[in-house]
């Protein structure tokens, strides 16, 4: 474990000042008290997360993602650096999306090759040649960040499509405040409870200019059988907006309405948690029963704002990711504040040669794959798997990128057997409105609960933690 950056302990075994109180708490609290806190936390989640925990059927109880009661800590100065980097990155992403669907300057300048845009399935031709309201494409962006040393944050992945997980961030905090009020008050933890307000303000700010001064906002969900339905209803509740399904909306003469008991009521902004493909059967998948026929036409007519914008997913592409430092420089004229994980673009012959020779050490990903599909984790693969993969790679190199296996940082996690370090990442949520970008201090920390595991996905033994941004300790 010593090879990994430990966020709590220095290599010599001394505790970093930011973690002083937490280390103390973890050490002084008897194991049975920690155990009872863990049990309480679970109970609270069942209660708070009532809409998805009390269904009583199997699928629902499975969806309770493990929660670790040891908070993850960032100091105010660390956060300030990270925050500036996140805002810079998301500003550049929005400018990039504007450009890709507009003038295409970055492609003409030869900075991003045009084929990685045009051949990307997330690039939506329907968005080309017109501007979305207030030029915002990625209203909510989830930027996955990891640490591998004391100084730098690395961006692992940009999620400009429909990032999820923010409900966990909010509920983790709620549970921690109730569970460990003393530990809480001993630190001055920056609040994140303003997230729903900030989100609402962002969504209101991007209403079409034709909307009334008090725009109507709705959250569009695929429905109660979607795995993130709980988050959808949670957010709609917190924002005080209607949770609608496609069949609740209708389009008449390029205006979107929702069907209410008082007749059709105009909708100005749709926070949609439905993929592009399903949004409008007249434009995308004709078999979609989840969407709203005519929605794209209303969107193009400028009568409704979709958040995030259709086609924003082109920025999530892993090939585009490799150009992010250049993209930031191109649009903002600034050096990137957050680092990219070093990445080989297999489309480039030199890189391909290197990757081919080092497959056993690298992680190779499909450029528009997600959720771990079409991916090779070299160190965890058999010779046959590597062999088979190298053929796929040779056949279509442009479809792949490769990265070193990252040494993610570790944080303490509390188990029945005691406290031990586990690997973590962080997903902060960046909001962009007509009035600029903002981030609430914190995010969703995901933790790989299995020892030695680097996989933080909830489907594979990952859990979550509350993330605290605290004032810098007096002595550093």
């Amino acid at each position, binding site marked *: 474990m010593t090879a990994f950056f430990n966020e709590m302990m220095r290599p010599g075994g001394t505790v970093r000042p930011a973690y002083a109180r937490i280390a103390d708490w973890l050490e002084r609290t008897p194991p049975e008290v920690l155990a009872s806190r863990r049990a309480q936390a679970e109970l609270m989640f069942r209660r708070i997360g009532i809409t998805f925990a009390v269904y*009583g059927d199997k699928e629902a109880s499975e969806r309770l993602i493990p929660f670790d009661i040891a908070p993850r800590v960032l100091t105010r100065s660390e956060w300030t650096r990270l925050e500036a980097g996140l805002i810079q990155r998301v500003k550049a992403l929005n400018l990039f999306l504007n450009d890709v669907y507009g003038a295409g300057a970055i492609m003409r300048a030869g900075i991003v090759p045009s084929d990685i845009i045009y051949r990307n399935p997330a690039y939506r031709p329907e968005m080309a040649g017109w501007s979305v309201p207030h030029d915002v494409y990625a209203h909510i962006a989830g930027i996955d960040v990891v640490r591998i040393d004391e100084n730098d944050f690395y961006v692992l992945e940009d999620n400009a499509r429909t990032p999820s997980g923010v409900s966990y961030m909010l509920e983790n905090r709620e549970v921690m405040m109730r569970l460990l009020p003393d530990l809480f008050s001993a630190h001055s933890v920056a609040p994140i409870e303003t997230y729903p307000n900030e989100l609402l303000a962002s969504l209101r700010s991007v209403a079409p200019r034709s909307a009334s001064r008090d725009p109507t906002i709705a959250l569009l969900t695929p429905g*109660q059988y979607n795995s993130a339905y709980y988050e959808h209803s949670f957010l709609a509740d917190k924002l005080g907006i209607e949770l609608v399904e496609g069949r*609740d909306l209708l389009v008449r003469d390029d205006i979107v309405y929702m*069907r*209410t*008991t*008082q007749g*059709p009521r105009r909708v100005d902004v749709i926070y949609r948690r439905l993929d592009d493909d399903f949004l409008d059967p007249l434009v995308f998948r004709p078999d979609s029963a989840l969407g709203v026929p005519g929605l794209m036409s209303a969107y193009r007519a400028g009568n409704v704002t979709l958040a995030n914008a259709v086609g924003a997913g082109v920025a999530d592409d892993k090939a585009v990711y490799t150009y992010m430092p250049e993209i930031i420089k191109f649009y903002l004229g600034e050096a990137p504040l957050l680092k990219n994980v070093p990445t080989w673009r297999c489309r480039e012959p030199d890189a391909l040669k290197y990757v081919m020779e080092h497959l056993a050490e690298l992680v190779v990903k499909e450029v528009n794959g997600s959720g771990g599909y079409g991916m090779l984790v070299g160190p965890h693969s058999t010779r046959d798997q590597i062999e088979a993969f190298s053929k796929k790679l040779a056949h279509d190199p442009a479809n792949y990128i490769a990265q070193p296996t990252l040494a993610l940082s570790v944080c303490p996690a509390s188990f029945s057997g005691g406290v031990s370090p586990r690997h973590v990442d962080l997903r902060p949520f960046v909001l962009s409105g007509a009035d600029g970008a903002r981030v609430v201090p914190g995010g969703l920390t995901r933790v790989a609960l299995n020892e030695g595991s680097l996989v933080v996905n909830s489907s594979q033994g990952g859990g979550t933690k509350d993330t605290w941004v605290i004032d810098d300790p007096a002595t550093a």
Partner: protein
Amino acid sequence: MLARTADNLYWLARNIERADYLARIVNVTRRLDTLPSAYSGPGTEWESALLSAGASERFDEFHQNVDAASVIDFLVFDERNPSSIANCIENGRSNARAVRTALTVESWEAINSGWLDLKSFQKPRSPGDPASSERLGQYLDAVMKVALDVDGSAYRTMLRNDAFWFTRLGHFVERADNTARILDVKYNLLLPSSEPVGGPVDYFQWAAILRAVSALTAYNWLYKEGVKPWLVADLLILRPEMPRSLRFCCGEMVRVLDSFARVYGQQGPAQRHARHMLTRLENTTMKEVFNGGLHEFVTAFIEDNSKLGAEIAEQYLLD
């Protein structure tokens, strides 16, 4: 409010109320079934139960003979019967789940835990055997308890806004329909020709109906005399203080619809129709009802009430 939300709330209430009614129908039929068969033609009670549940046609698709076992199974458990108790509870719970955030925690838990409890009941194998019969009794009691819990929790905890009023509307539209149907049970029961009207079997049948809707005590309080058909009908049709009577249900529907009209600033066919139904009941006497025929009166009411249901759907739930 979203029309779909209103629709789910309305049908949540209707489904639960219907489950309660069906449990009562099965109970009263079980009771009638205990009469010595010499007093009544065999099987008549169960045919009548199917008729008053509005399920005979569907039943005939799957069954040759009408007997206690198959009717009970069909009305209570059968998934092929869209209005079986099990399906009503399932649908009601799924209505609730779809609008989870429009309900209070208490209301949601009432329906959800009721649903869970009923699911865990083992289906009785043969209704003839006493253990099964007891278990069926417990199941039916549990169904009525769910209805009571759902209703009570809504009454005690929900904000008095349109969400609440839509559940009330569903509740009373369904309840009026059910009361009308249970009155018809008696019509469908054949009184053996040897039996005089007003004789012991006739008495037993009417009393069983009162018992089914928990109105025997109310009857005694109000009328202070033996069970007489026109008084039973009076209680279940015209009595404004009887919470199952058609008059009471119509009064509530009018009240709810009027509050929509007030809050939404608009009224339509549903309001006009409900008022018309109420006025008719207010201006009718039992004598007129019996002169025209109780069965005819009840049939006309059921039709009228379902027309109101369609108007409510058109006005509020579909668009």
